[in-house]
C-alpha cells in the first residue's frame, strides 16, 4: 500500500488532535474502566477486585438508590421538557404568530447561561424566602393540600432539580423540534384540514408520525444530558438522595472512595454510549427521510 502525500498531510494535521484525545480523554476513560475493577494505571495499589461493583449493588450502600433517583428524576425532567418543547414548537408551527419573530432570541438565553448560574437563579426563586416558594406554597396551602410550607429546593424529592433541569432542557427540546417541524409539508396539513381533521388530530396523525425520529433522538440526548449534568443537582439537590454524578464528586473529593466512583463512571460511560448511539442513529434516519 502506497501512502500518498495527501495522507501524510492528513496524518500530520490530525496527529495533535489524536494525541490530545488520547491523553485527555481515552486514557482517563481507560483509567475509569480499569479502576472500577481495582487496577490502577497511575501507580498505587493495584489488584483485580470486584469490590467496587459489589458495593455499588449493595442495597445498604447509597449507590443503587442514587442510580434509581438519577434515572427517575431525569426521566421526569425529560418527559416534561420533551412534551412542553414539542407542544410549543407545534403551536408556533401551526399558528405562526407574528409577535414571535420579534422576541424569539429570548429562547436562546438558557443556552448561554452557565449551568451553575442557571441553578443559582432557580435557587433564589425556590428557597424558603423565594418568590416561587411563596406562590407555590401559598396556592397549595390555600387548597388545603399541605398544612405548612414544603421545601422546593435542596429537597429530598428532587423538586428543585426538576425546576432547574426543565428550564434548560425545555429550550433545547424546543429548538431541536422546531427545525424538523418546519420541514413538514404544509400540503399534508391542509389536506388533513380539508378532510375535517381538528388541530389535535393533525398533531397526532400528521406531525407526530413524521417527526417521530426527531422525538426519539431528542429524548435520548436530553435524558443523557440530564443524567450527566453535575451543577444543577449539586446546587439544587438535597443532602439525600443525591444524583449519581454528585455521588462520584463526593466519593473522590471527600470520601476518597475512588473504586466506587469509577464504577459509577462505568455506568455513565455505558449510558452515554447507548443513548449517544440512539441519538446519532435516529438523527441520521431523520435527515434521510427529510431529504426524500
Amino acid at each position, binding site marked *: 500500500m502506497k501512502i500518498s502525500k495527501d495522507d501524510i*498531510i*492528513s*496524518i*500530520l*494535521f*490530525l496527529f*495533535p*488532535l*489524536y494525541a*490530545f484525545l488520547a*491523553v*485527555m480523554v481515552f486514557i*482517563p*476513560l481507560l483509567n475509569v474502566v480499569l*479502576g472500577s475493577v481495582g487496577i490502577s494505571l*497511575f*501507580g498505587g495499589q493495584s489488584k483485580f477486585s470486584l469490590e467496587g461493583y459489589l458495593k455499588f449493588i449493595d442495597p445498604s450502600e447509597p449507590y443503587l438508590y442514587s442510580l434509581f433517583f438519577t434515572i427517575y428524576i431525569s426521566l421526569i425532567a425529560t418527559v416534561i421538557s420533551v412534551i412542553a418543547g414539542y407542544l*410549543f414548537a407545534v403551536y408556533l408551527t401551526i*399558528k405562526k*404568530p407574528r*409577535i414571535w419573530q420579534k422576541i424569539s*432570541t429570548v429562547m*436562546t*438565553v*438558557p*443556552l*448561554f*447561561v*452557565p*449551568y*451553575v*448560574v*442557571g441553578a*443559582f*437563579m432557580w*435557587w433564589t*426563586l425556590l428557597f424558603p424566602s423565594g*418568590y416561587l416558594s411563596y406562590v407555590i406554597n401559598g396556592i397549595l396551602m390555600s387548597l388545603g393540600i399541605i398544612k405548612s410550607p414544603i421545601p422546593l429546593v435542596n429537597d429530598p424529592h428532587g423538586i428543585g432539580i426538576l425546576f432547574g433541569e426543565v428550564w*434548560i432542557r425545555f429550550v433545547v427540546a424546543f429548538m431541536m423540534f422546531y427545525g424538523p417541524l418546519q420541514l413538514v409539508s404544509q400540503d399534508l396539513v391542509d389536506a388533513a384540514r380539508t378532510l375535517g381533521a381538528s388541530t389535535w388530530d393533525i398533531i397526532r396523525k400528521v406531525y407526530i408520525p413524521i417527526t417521530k425520529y426527531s422525538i426519539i433522538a431528542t429524548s435520548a440526548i436530553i435524558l443523557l444530558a440530564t*443524567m*450527566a*449534568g*453535575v*451543577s444543577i443537582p*449539586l*446546587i439544587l439537590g438535597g443532602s439525600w438522595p443525591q444524583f449519581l*454524578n454528585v455521588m*462520584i*464528586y463526593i466519593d*473522590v*473529593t471527600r470520601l476518597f472512595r*475512588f473504586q466506587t*466512583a469509577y464504577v459509577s*463512571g462505568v455506568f*455513565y*460511560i455505558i449510558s*452515554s*454510549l447507548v*443513548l*449517544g448511539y440512539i441519538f446519532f442513529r435516529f438523527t441520521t434516519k431523520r435527515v434521510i427521510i427529510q431529504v426524500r
Partner: protein
Amino acid sequence: MRKQKIWDILIIGLVVAYIVLPLLVLVEYAFAEVWYAYQLFPSKLGFKWFSWVLENYDTRMSFIYSYTLAPLVMIATLALCIPAGYVLGTRRNKLSLITENLVNMNMALPVIVIGVGLLPLYSRLGLLNNYWALIPAHMIGAIPYTLRSITAAFMQVPRELEEVARVLGASKLKVIQKVYIPLTWRGILAGGVFAFSWSLNEFILTMLLGFPGVKTLPVSIYEYVGGYYLTPQPAAALSLLIVVPAIGIAAFLEKYLQVSLGLGGG
C-alpha cells in the same frame, strides 16, 4: 382573529416570562443593597455587591483566572482544531469520518467521568491546583464545538479554488492566505468564541483539578450558594459578570456570524 392574537400573547408571554423571570430575580439580587427577610422587594438598590466582589481578593482572583484562562483556552483550541478542521473539511475520507465520530463521542461523555479519570494522572504529574494545567482540561469540552465550526467552514470552500490557485502558480502558503483565510475566518472566529465561552462556563473540571488553588468564577459562585456561605447577593453579582458577557457573545454570534449554540459548561 382577535381571540387568536390574545391566545398568542398569552402563550408566548407565559413562555417568555418562564425563561426571563429567573434572570430578573438574579439582577434584583445583584443590585439589592438592603433586603430584609420579611420584605418582598429590596429596600435599597445599588452597586455595593459589584464593588465588593471586585475588591474582595478571592473573587477578584477568580475574575482574573476566568478571563485569562478563556483566551488561552481559545488560542490552544484553535491551534489544535484549525489543522484538524482543514483535513476534515477538505478530505472526506474514512480517517475523517473516524475522527469525527471519536470527537462526537467525546461530546456524549459526561465531563465528570473524564475528570475523575484525569484526577490520578494530574495528581501523579503534580498538576493539581495548577493554573496552566487547567487549559487542556477546559479544552476537552471546547474541542467538539470548535472543530465542528471550523470543519463546516472548510467544507464550504470549493475544492476547485485551491486547484485553480495552485495551477496559476500560487504556493501552499499563498493558497492559505488568499483562498482559505478569507473564506473560513467566520467559522474559525465562531469556533474560537465557542472555546472562549466554554472555558468561561466550565465548572466541574475546575472543581476537580484546580480547586482550591485556582478558583474561576463558576467555582466562586458555587462556593457562595453550594452550602459554604449561602450568601446570594455576591453570588448574584458574580453571576452577572459571566452572564452578561455570555449573552453578549450569543448576540454577537447570532448577529454577525449567523451561528447559534448552547454552552452550559457541565
